[in-house]
């Protein structure tokens, strides 16, 4: 039940984050150049938004993969191992992604 709820909640969050992402990154209003992108990436508010986006993507993807794998009867006995692997992968990816987001600074 927790996995189900986590996946649904992050799905709602992703709708918001992806909408924002598409508007800001792919269809930005007005002029866009390298310096403006760097300025945005260095902005602390955007860093928080990007970290939350990353968190939502990771939770959604890993819970989804977990649910799909748990459908396979042969995998079911390895539930704990699957949960452990998902948490570990999630933590590594989150740490790596967060470090990347925090690395951006203004020139």
């Amino acid at each position: 039940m927790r996995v189900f709820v986590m996946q649904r909640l992050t799905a709602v969050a992703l709708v918001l984050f992806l909408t924002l992402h598409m508007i800001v990154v792919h269809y930005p209003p007005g002029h866009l150049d390298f310096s403006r992108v760097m300025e945005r990436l260095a902005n602390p508010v955007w860093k928080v938004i990007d970290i939350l986006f990353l968190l939502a993507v990771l939770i959604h993807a890993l819970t989804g993969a977990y649910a799909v794998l748990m459908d396979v009867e042969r995998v079911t006995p390895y539930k704990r191992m699957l949960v452990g692997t998902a948490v570990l992968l999630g933590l590594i990816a989150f740490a790596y992604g967060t470090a990347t987001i925090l690395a951006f600074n203004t020139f």
Partner: protein
Amino acid sequence: MAKNGQTQNVTIRVQRFNPDVDAKPYLASYEIEATADTTLLDALEQIKATLDGSLTFRRSCRHAICGSCAMNVNGRNMLVCNRRVNALLDRRGRVTIRPLPYLPIIKDLVVDRTSFWEQYLRVKPWLIPPENGAAPAGEYRVLPAEVEALKMAETCIMCGACYSACQVVAMNKQYIGPHALLKAFLRVLDPRDAAPAERLEIVGGDDGVFRCHTIFNCIDACPKGLDPTFAIETLRKLAQKRLAFAAERVERQKSLGTGRDA
């Protein structure tokens, strides 16, 4: 297409498998004479009576109420006793009948339903009445709205069409399955039942409602037009407020003997 009173020759392809003789299932074709009213079950009976007495299939009531004759016809699960051959002919004028998929074949069109019944028993499909002290002295008086809510689930004939059509069941026989979850829905929403929390704990577990992928195959397959997916969605919501729902039930049962709304 044969009109009333006329007959036409049609080909019925039936999946055959005798575990004592055959290495794997195969399709056998039979030519039969069908009228506009010939049902698939009539066709199978005709094949068994006149062409091949070894053909094995389950059937009983012939009135779509016993649930024995669920099979896979042209790729869809259905009862064969209430479907006419004429309406199911493919472009080549054939009908293909196979046993219910994803279940072990015992012989020909007969499948082993052990997992179906095992999962059914997991949800405790019987009514669990209130303890002696809490039970009404006379009859249970349930509100019309409460009865109406259960109508959808209580006409299930346990044919197995939904269970065998479910892709989650196909992957994992530990999944409780739409048939049993529909029954759990019936009991959980029944105001006479005293164990909604226990039931919701079972259906809210690893093998229960949260494993459903809402593919809707169960709705598509149900010969009674029932909606197991709606039942599963309802149980999902109730499982998340299990204890509060159980407390509401205790309150409701205090007025079960009077007919008053709780």
